[in-house]
């Protein structure tokens, strides 16, 4: 035999470490630096407590229009000069908005990072926000959203969100708004959002070779001219769940796949069950060998891939399964999906499955945290959720040690197979009758 039959054992593992952190306070803001010796690239992110949750009702997308307006010129230079100055450092600005924060990230070779952060701060703190530019960016964003919404997925996402959180609530509307709400955004909305939320110091996150990078100078660049107190935390929203399942049909005539978005509400990120829930969801729909992917892709061949996970922000969470399945097998795929969610909820997880989930989650804390960009992302989680500097080593130990009974108990408590909202975006003319006949839940048409 030319092959070795015996699977090798593992070698000795080096102890897990997260990069050393340094903190400095400058001009009322905090810089948190993670030391990555020898890295040629460095990343920085200005993290502001200015998420989409602050937007006015009916004007969802205001913060996104602001984010896209930042590079249309600053107090010092016009948009072309700004683009050339920043890109000549090898850097590009990545402004973004989520529910909890407004973020502006830059990456550059280490010697260029300070100038890149100066330019990022110039755009974030002193954008020109010329009314003509803001109106044009707003119109472009409406068009870009229409482009995006022509793909399968965004309409289904919006339908699920509206059903889970209420179409009249901010958290029931798309995080970046929809074409209708963005078209209502005015110059005054954008300027007001900037004035209220982007002139507070916030936190600057830095990952790179701190032997070379000057955190004081980086902080001075990020926080110059800022002011304002940190905001008080707001209460979590609770976890209401539907009494019965409901199917929402989003028509996409001619679609060769049905896009599934299946979910229910869940606790916010601060839940003490975070680790147990993450491990349970990894067994159900996180790993490649998860119950859902195994059955629906590897056994049935219905899909290219199916994932299930919890997503959690400061005030709320949700469980969601996402997949694209061939149109002809839409109903069997949904029935199998509900079956695996119900089985996991009722009977919990097995030792073998949990062992995979534990090691994978623990290993990913090394394997997926090699770059300055990924470390900055990890730092942002610490800041947004108020976690300690030793959080990642602790999390790793918890992934490896949390008892099986606790993971199964979390599945029992935080999966709701009878209260699912099932959004199906596909060719309604082909799938509607079968969906109704399957009696999975009431079938309604999306108001989108």
């Amino acid at each position: 035999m030319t092959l070795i039959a015996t699977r090798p054992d593992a070698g000795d593992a080096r102890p897990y470490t997260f990069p050393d952190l340094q903190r400095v306070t400058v001009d009322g803001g905090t810089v948190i630096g993670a030391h990555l010796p020898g890295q040629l690239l460095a990343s920085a992110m200005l993290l502001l407590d200015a998420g989409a949750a602050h937007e006015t009702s009916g004007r969802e997308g205001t913060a996104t229009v602001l984010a896209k307006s930042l590079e249309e010129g600053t107090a010092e230079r016009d948009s072309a000069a700004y683009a050339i100055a920043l890109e000549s450092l090898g850097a590009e600005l990545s402004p973004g908005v989520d529910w909890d924060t407004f973020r502006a990230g830059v990456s550059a070779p280490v010697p260029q990072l300070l100038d890149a952060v100066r330019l990022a701060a110039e755009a974030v703190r002193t954008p020109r926000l010329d009314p003509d530019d803001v109106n044009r960016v707003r119109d472009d964003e409406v068009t870009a959203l229409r482009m995006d919404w022509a793909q399968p997925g965004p309409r289904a996402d919006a339908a699920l969100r509206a059903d889970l959180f209420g179409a009249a609530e901010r958290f029931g509307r798309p995080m970046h708004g929809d074409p209708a709400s963005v078209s209502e955004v005015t110059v005054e909305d954008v300027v007001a959002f900037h004035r209220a939320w982007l002139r507070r110091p916030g936190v600057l996150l830095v990952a790179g070779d701190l032997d070379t990078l000057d955190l004081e100078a980086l902080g001075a660049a990020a926080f110059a001219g800022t002011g304002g107190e940190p905001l008080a935390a707001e209460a979590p929203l609770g976890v209401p769940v539907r009494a019965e399942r409901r199917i929402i049909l989003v028509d996409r005539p001619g679609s060769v796949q049905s896009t599934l978005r299946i979910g229910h509400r869940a606790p916010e990120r601060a839940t003490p069950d975070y680790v147990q829930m993450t491990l349970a969801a990894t067994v159900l729909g996180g790993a490649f060998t998860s119950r859902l992917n195994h059955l629906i892709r590897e056994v049935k061949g219905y899909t290219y891939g199916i994932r299930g996970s919890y997503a959690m922000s400061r005030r709320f969470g949700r469980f969601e399964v996402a997949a694209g399945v061939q149109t002809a097998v839409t109903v069997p795929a949904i029935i199998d999906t509900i079956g695996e969610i119900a089985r996991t909820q009722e009977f919990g997880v097995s030792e073998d499955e949990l062992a995979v989930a534990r090691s994978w989650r623990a290993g990913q804390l090394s394997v997926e945290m090699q770059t300055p960009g990924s470390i900055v992302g990890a730092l942002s989680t610490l800041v947004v959720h108020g976690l300690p500097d030793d959080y990642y080593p602790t999390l790793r130990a918890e992934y490896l040690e949390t008892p099986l009974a606790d993971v199964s108990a979390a599945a029992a408590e935080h999966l709701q197979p009878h209260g699912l909202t099932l959004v199906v975006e596909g060719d309604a003319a082909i799938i509607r009758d079968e969906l109704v006949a399957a009696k999975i839940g009431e079938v309604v048409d999306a108001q989108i």
Partner: protein
Amino acid sequence: MTSPSAPAVETGYPWPIETTRLANGLQVVASEDRTAPVVCVNLWYDVGSRHEPAGQTGFAHLFEHLMFEGSAHVAKTEHMRLVQGNGGSLNATTNPDRTNYFETMPAEHLELALWLEADRMGGLVPALTQETLDNQREVVKNERRQRYDNVPYGDAWLRLLALLYPVGHPYHHATIGSMEDLNAASLDTFKAFHQQYYAPNNAVLTVAGDASPADVFALAEKYFGLLEPVASIPPAPANHLTAPAATPARETVTAAVPAPRLYLAHRTHPFGTAGYDAITVLAAVLGNGRGSRLYQRLADGARIAQPDYIGSYGVDLAHAPAPLIITATAKDGVSVETLEEGLSEVVGSLVTEPVTPEELSRAKALLTTAWWRQVSTVGGRADTLSRYATQFGDPGSAAYRLPQWLAVTADDVTEAAAYALRPESRVTLTYLPESNEEAA
């Protein structure tokens, strides 16, 4: 601005590289870096969709899927379970040139990763069943639906390849293949495919990260050393294409798309040549970032193109003149004719208006960051070394790419544009929304 400018870059690969070749022909590359306790195992097999004969499109990629479904000592689904269940990330990709497989693991599992790779290099055929083939055929058909058929403009790449490369050329058909050919795939064909191409003398194994070259070479010998080489590996179909094309080609597609979109494409030079380095810099000057000519003139200046959907890029194929693709999507109320006129004018400006020092240094700065980002992980590094070993016979030549980009002059860019971007060699692919049909 007070920071010092970037020092002159003398190498794009400042990590050690050691190589060896086993008696069976397997090239082994080791690049040690003890910074993080992670290691990547990467294999390039010198087989891609360019090797597929007519009637067998999509086979190289479908075969890639079969490589995850078990082998002589690895049960079905066990490969994924062992990698993820030991903390690793894994994947594989197929393109016209080659097929690659890779897993990044906590370093203590290096030996496991090598054992898994050797088992499927040498022991796939006994584990291959009709059931597995049928299942993965359906998965791949779903991949095609999800990526190409169910997405607006999703088939652009499929159409561009067919327009850029003549019938019979190895790049003419797309890697994903046709539904018809996938349906006709037989088990025996795949067994033969493995026996022909999945040989140690048709592969490069690279290990980058937390492992010493001595350990890597000893483990490679232990797990791969006894695999038999294949005496004659069939070459890809003949390819006598000269670049660029002599006549323009044009296709207009009316489909369920939200706005008119244009793709202009040209055959340029093969990846790895000085000519293609100039094309890489040209693509960055033309269409990378907000400071690029396309963005400045069409999204910001004339405001006829949507700012989020404009750009240009080369597709790094090495076995024939590689494509340069330029794309823009019309803003509301802008006709596709206006957009094409604007796009052609900006592309033409690369010949008539010399690239300024400012444009050149902006493009090179962005390329520099992109290069360092690519090699910032052990996975990116291992894949880069496997590429250069496979395509140019020397993993160490990876170090030259960045300095070669940085050595490109404004004249080189002008010359590359004059050679490759002439209107008479252009492929123009236009998408129009269905509602335009009646108006047209």
